[in-house]
């Protein structure tokens, strides 16, 4: 073992102890601060429904990324300046999400995870059932870390969670730069690659939210960095990677499987590499540890992951159906509610995609020419080659979400390959030096903006007035007060049926037990699509042991932007046509045995226990 450990000197980052000039770092910090101020005003304008909100938002984003990107392409900066600029950009872009919802977590997935965090804080123990996202309590890493911070300081889950995800964001930027630097031996390419990673559609919002992937991707980056740093030699630091690997396993299922896929590929490429006799043992040992740990966690703690993810993998097979012509392709950039992205947004989004597709072959060619003896670089190149497949998946209704979710992982490879492409030497004969840097910075900025546009639609990106059936835009005082009323007057854990947004609100603020097809395999959404209350509706109430129905009259006639009125599985055509009627929603009012126990301006609660059991408890 020692002989192998000594086979090749490990790469060391250039340390340098000379006084560090900060270069552009202070100036980029000020511009990032101004950019954030602009984004904050954009949100204010958005809440007032002003058309100028978009201009202020994108001006702010440009102030955050533009100067930093320009400097990263420069050859002059010290690597420490590059690291500082990347850290400022990563944190500033995280704060963009904070400015969106500065007092609480209001994104749909965040509220699902908040229920798990709330359960842990209330009971002090893990694994309580979360009817909003059954799998969440089985991967409690984020919520546990948040609770540890919250418990020690007495701060709220929001404050503690904000800081934990922020720390993970900083970890991601630092570890990714260091990892890419090890692979390329070039801090300029590493800095650009890290910036290109930030252009992935999930970076601005999805991986900045209070959700399990946000913290897991940071762990992935540090695991890869530690393995690359040690060449897999146990005594040289690979052992330390076991801690973040455990962190990934207890935090997020998809990240765990993405890590396994990456490590298996990496090990295989390492085994095939002609220079392996000179290398350390590679990632094989940690690959085995990860597989054993993930399998043990899956079967001992989180077996329901199989059914949860099984459906998602099946969704990806829709691509085959699309190729066979069995299904029609999805219309891109159009929400269920019919809202279509503005033309300039579509141009940027397509531009981003085509730029990446165009740069991939160049980057792969350069990777093969200069780095083909490095198994890590080859593995990243293979990961990048999956990118076009994920684009094809976006054309299917079923696979679009899976494709979107994968970008946080695929971009580990895409970032490196694109960075290699945009830093490839330009032949002097072309005389492009004068315009090369502005052109390349424009390319990566377009890539970033296009990625952000693909990642989150405009109605999520910028806050605004209430919209029915629009997830974060539907979270407002009336719904929250109704949920709180339920907790105070009906008590917790009552079995309720509600629409997509009010299901989350009643489950989170009301601590109720929503009954759904997702959690109970009872198609409760079918309660609302028929004209009257017949045997079918009574049977659903009976099977779901439903006690209360929460109705939000604002949904009537609306085409919900978030997709379904209630949940996946309902007839999409009704939502697309805005076919939910007020009569169908409120039909329970006149049914004998049903009490209308609560009324606010737009919401009612029906007590249907007599329908469910025939006898009031």
């Amino acid at each position, binding site marked *: 073992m020692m002989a192998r450990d000594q086979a090749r000197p490990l790469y060391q*980052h250039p*340390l340098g*102890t000379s*006084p560090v*000039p900060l270069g552009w770092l*202070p100036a980029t*910090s*000020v511009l990032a*601060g101004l950019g*954030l101020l602009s*984004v*904050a005003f954009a*949100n*204010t304008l958005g*809440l007032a429904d002003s058309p100028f909100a978009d201009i202020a938002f994108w001006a702010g984003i440009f102030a955050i990324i533009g100067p930093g990107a320009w400097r990263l392409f420069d050859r002059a900066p010290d690597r420490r300046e590059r690291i500082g600029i990347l850290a400022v950009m990563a944190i*500033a872009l995280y*704060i963009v999400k904070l*400015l*969106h919802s*500065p*007092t609480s977590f209001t994104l749909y997935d965040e509220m699902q995870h908040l229920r798990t965090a709330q359960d842990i804080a209330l009971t*002090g123990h893990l694994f309580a059932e979360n009817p909003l996202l059954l799998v969440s309590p089985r991967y409690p890493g984020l919520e*546990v*870390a948040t*609770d*540890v*911070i919250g*418990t*020690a*300081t007495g*701060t709220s889950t929001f404050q*503690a969670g904000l800081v*934990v995800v922020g720390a*993970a964001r900083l970890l991601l930027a*630092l570890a990714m730069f260091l990892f890419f630097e090890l692979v390329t031996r070039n801090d300029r390419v590493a800095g650009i690659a890290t910036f290109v990673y930030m252009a992935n559609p999930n970076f601005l919002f999805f991986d900045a939210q209070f959700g399990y992937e946000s913290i897991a991707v*940071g*762990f992935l980056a*540090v695991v890869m960095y*530690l393995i690359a740093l040690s060449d897999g030699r146990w005594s040289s630091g690979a*052992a*330390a990677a076991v*801690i*973040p690997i*455990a962190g990934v396993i*207890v935090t997020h299922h998809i990240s765990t499987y993405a890590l396994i896929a990456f490590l298996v590929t990496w090990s295989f490429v390492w085994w095939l590499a002609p220079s392996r006799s000179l290398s350390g043992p590679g990632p094989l040992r940690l690959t085995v540890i990860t597989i054993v740990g993930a399998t043990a966690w899956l079967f001992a703690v989180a077996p329901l992951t199989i059914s949860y993810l099984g459906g998602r993998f099946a969704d990806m097979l829709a691509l085959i159906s699309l190729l066979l012509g069995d299904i029609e392709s999805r219309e891109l950039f159009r929400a269920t509610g019919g809202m279509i992205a503005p033309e300039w947004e579509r141009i940027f989004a397509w531009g981003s995609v085509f730029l990446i597709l165009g740069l991939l072959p160049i980057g792969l060619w350069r990777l093969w020419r200069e780095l083909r003896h490095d198994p890590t670089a080859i593995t990243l190149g293979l990961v990048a080659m999956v990118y076009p497949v994920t684009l094809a998946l976006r054309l299917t209704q079923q696979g679009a979400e899976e494709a979107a979710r994968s970008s946080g992982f695929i971009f580990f490879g895409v970032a490196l390959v694109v960075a290699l492409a945009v830093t490839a030497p330009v032949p002097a004969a072309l005389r492009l030096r004068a315009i090369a840097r502005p052109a390349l910075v424009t390319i990566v900025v377009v890539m970033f903006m296009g990625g952000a546009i693909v990642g989150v639609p405009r109605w999520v990106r910028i806050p605004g*007035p209430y919209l029915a059936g629009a997830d974060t835009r539907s979270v*407002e*005082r*009336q719904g929250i*007060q109704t949920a709180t*009323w339920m907790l105070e*007057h009906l008590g917790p854990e009552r079995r309720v049926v509600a629409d997509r947004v009010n299901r989350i609100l009643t489950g989170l603020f009301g601590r109720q037990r929503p009954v759904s097809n997702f959690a109970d395999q009872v198609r409760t959404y079918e309660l609302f699509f028929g004209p009257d209350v017949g045997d079918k509706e009574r049977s659903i109430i009976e099977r779901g042991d439903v006690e209360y129905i929460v109705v939000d009259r604002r949904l009537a006639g609306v085409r919900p932007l978030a997709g379904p009125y209630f949940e996946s599985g309902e007839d999409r055509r009704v939502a697309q046509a805005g076919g939910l009627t007020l009569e169908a929603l409120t039909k329970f009012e006149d049914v004998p045995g049903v*009490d*209308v*126990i*609560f*009324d*606010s*301006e737009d919401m009612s609660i029906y007590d249907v226990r007599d329908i469910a059991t025939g006898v*009031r408890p």
Partner: protein
Amino acid sequence: MIAVPFVLGAIALVLLAIIDAGIVLAIAAVIVLVVIPGLALTSRLVPTTGLGAASWAAVALGLGLGAAMLIGIAADLTPLGIRFAPVILLAISIGWIVVLFRRSGGAWPRIARPRVSTRDASLLALGLLLTVSAYGVARGSAAGAAAGTGDPSSLTQLWILPMSDDTVQLGIHNGGDEAMTYRLVLESDDAELGEFPEIALEPGTSWQETVPAASLPAGSVEARLYDAADPATPIRAVSLSDPPSGG
């Protein structure tokens, strides 16, 4: 001149503490419970001779966050669960284990002395101040948007609940931002059973009244709520199809 960055930085921190003191506390907690244990683990588990400050920071954050999770999961196994005492005890225990099983050869990073001019420091502090100001603006806008609902009665709740002690509870909550005066009428088959002509509620307050079920007729009972300023148009209505033990 040297005072400029200190003043700007101090203003930023005070402003952040005023806007949200909890975040300052949580940042401090992350340093104590994540970064410091992470640094200790890094110094023991990773050969540190070749690591620069950025590598130290990244590895320490990764190991510290992972350790915080594992501490939480271990605390879950204790009878007290994930509470203050077990969390702190486990954190200290891990610290001691790390110290006792220290590896030799670890070294703290040779951190280059930053060459920070007064101008640079002022700009960094200004960046921080602008960031905190942006947060303040966002919070102010969010609070303003939540408050501005237009119709003062839009957040009024009315309820009627059959209780287990053979009574019926009537309730009104004014969840809006303005004081309201209401009129509540109890009816059965269009016959008025009773009236509460003037119920004044300040924002955020509730009114409740319990009615014996025996005093109610058989059949459905309906409660209608009116804004006292417009007594002809009901703004809310609730009903019981068959009150418990109804007369």
